């Protein structure tokens, strides 16, 4: 079941790749893997999906295991460079091409796919300045140690320097098994302690959910607004709720990230060069657009925003589009 006209080995089929994610679960991962599957199916490739569940050591083991398994290529999704550089090199040494998403392995042979966390944060924070002005008391939900969050939070800090009127009155946050509920409890304490707070930056949608819950419970939805990152069907519904404080979010489509990663890897396997850096542009989604266009799910968002649905990155004629 190969693809006629495709370069080897895709003309014969039977290609097996491994996709190894740092994350353990969640909507983002689900969508990413769905994208991987779609593109892999279109290419007639068998994709072996595995997850390190936030355990960087486990991610090393999984890469090692993929090498043992003798796959034709490896996608590394997130993770930390120090821990992965040498195993990625080991894969290259074994003749297995590697692409990395959102983790800088600093290796000329490894194409980097990026969704640009900085761009996402900038998009949504610029929207905040546009709507709330250059002077407000803001807060951010943040827990360090998670690379994408670190990058997004850094942008928030920069905004604080750029606009002296923006004051960070509180940072809080927690990552555990029940993020929304725990963040909600914290947020309520913060709201009580800081009545002047008017903008909350949430670099992760789980945080945004918790903050929204707290704002709703405290009944201050008209005073405090949420500017977030990431999107999913349930995020869309949360934003669409009447009087929802969550007014804007910036996101890339994780499914597209998955598709692009597989395409880039396929090119490498076929001996072609997808380029060293593959960038996927984020989209700003506001509450207003969702309501105006009557968008209720991710699928509907994709229909209305083609840029969200697909990316031209790493496309080639011989690579069939995913269905």
């Amino acid at each position, binding site marked *: 079941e190969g693809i006629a006209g495709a370069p080897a080995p895709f003309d014969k089929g039977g290609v097996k790749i491994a996709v190894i994610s740092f994350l353990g*679960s969640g909507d983002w991962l689900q969508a990413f893997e769905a994208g991987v599957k779609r593109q892999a199916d279109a290419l007639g490739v068998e994709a072996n999906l595995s997850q390190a569940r936030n355990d960087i050591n486990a991610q090393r083991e999984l890469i090692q295991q993929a090498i043992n398994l003798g796959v034709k290529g490896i996608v590394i999704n997130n993770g930390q460079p120090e821990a992965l550089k040498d195993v990625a090199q080991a894969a290259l040494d074994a003749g297995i091409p590697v692409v990395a998403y959102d983790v800088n392995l600093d290796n000329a042979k490894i194409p980097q796919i990026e969704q640009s966390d900085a761009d996402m944060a900038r998009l949504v924070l610029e929207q905040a300045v546009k709507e709330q002005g250059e002077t407000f008391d803001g807060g951010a939900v943040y827990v360090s140690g998670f690379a994408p969050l670190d990058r997004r939070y850094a942008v928030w800090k920069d905004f604080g320097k750029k606009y002296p009127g923006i004051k960070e009155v509180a940072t*809080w946050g927690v990552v555990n098994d029940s993020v929304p*509920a725990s963040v909600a409890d*914290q947020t309520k304490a913060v709201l009580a*302690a800081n009545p002047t707070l008017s903008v909350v930056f949430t670099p992760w949608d789980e945080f945004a959910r918790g903050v929204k819950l707290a704002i709703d419970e405290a009944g201050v939805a008209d005073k405090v607004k949420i500017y977030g990152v990431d999107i999913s069907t*349930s995020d869309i*519904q949360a934003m669409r709720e009447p009087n929802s404080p969550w007014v804007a979010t910036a996101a890339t489509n994780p499914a597209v990230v998955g598709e692009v990663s597989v395409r880039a890897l396929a090119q490498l396997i076929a001996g072609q060069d997808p380029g060293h850096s593959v960038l996927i542009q984020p989209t700003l989604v506001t509450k207003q657009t969702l309501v105006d266009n009557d968008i209720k*799910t991710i699928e509907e968002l994709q229909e209305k925003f083609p840029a969200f649905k697909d990316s031209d990155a790493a496309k080639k004629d011989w690579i069939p589009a995913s269905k």
Partner: protein
Amino acid sequence: MTDHATASSKPASTFAETARKYALFVLLAVMLVGFWSAQPAFINSANLFSILQAVSVVAILGVGVSITMSAGGFDLSVGSVAASSVMAASYAMVVLQMNAFETLGLVLLMGAFIGLVNGLLIVRVGVPDLLATLSTMFLLAGLQLIPTGGRSITAGMMLPNGTTAAGAYDPAFLVLGRGRLFDTVPYPVIVMGIVAILAWFLMERTRWGRVFYAIGGNETAAHLAGAPTKAYRLWAYVLSGTLASLGGLIVASRVGRGDVSAGNSLLLDAVAASLIGFAVLDKRRPHVLGTVLGAIFVGVLLNGLTMLNAPYYTQDFVKGVVLVGALALTFGLGKKKR
């Protein structure tokens, strides 16, 4: 008959004893006053109720843990039972389109059933408590994700078979987690109160409660005294499972979606609450009042620190320090020589 055992009147309790007994209450009061003076908003009733609301789930799970503990067992599965209940409640409403009451019934039954399975593994098959509930914990952590293929559950979600889920959260269901009595007292706090009172009554004021403790103290002795110890231990797990699923229901109705999680942090917090409870009133054993107070204790600490804008990583540290301090005080003062 014995010529020693003099007066059956209690000896006047020493200062150390009293200190030990009320150490945690005093500490709690000190904390309240401290936070209040540092941040006046701390003491307003809305904030106090949100503390109680924040601890309600942990307290309810902790009560279950302390019941199994008093019967000499240990339920490691409460966290994942709660997490599974969140998923089950969401699945029932969003996919199966059940209403609030059907959902409540279904999920509580599920919790009781999981407790029953734990109990049967332990008393029938003879698997040690920790092992059996650990297995259940892993089992549920995976099982809860299978119906949706690992996705979290929200209205309008795409199902594995390609169709879109037609149902949604019943607004009546959301009231459980989000509503307030007289616009003041959140329902979860009321549920916690009812659970605490019933459980306290069961454990401290009924024959059954005494037997739970007797089994924990010496199972053979309780058996020889005529107690159907296996049935009791089974019931302890059924109660614990049911309470855990009640906790899960509150989380679900608060969050309004079926979130993927293993519930491990709920487990640790619930265990912490019931362990801190050991020190309350110097009982040195699991008990309901202590568990609830233990949960509140930690809740006050976290709320206050958040208000003072302490970095998140100091919170665990302070939690640890206060724990060690409270324990050293309680146990150190009452050091018994062997």
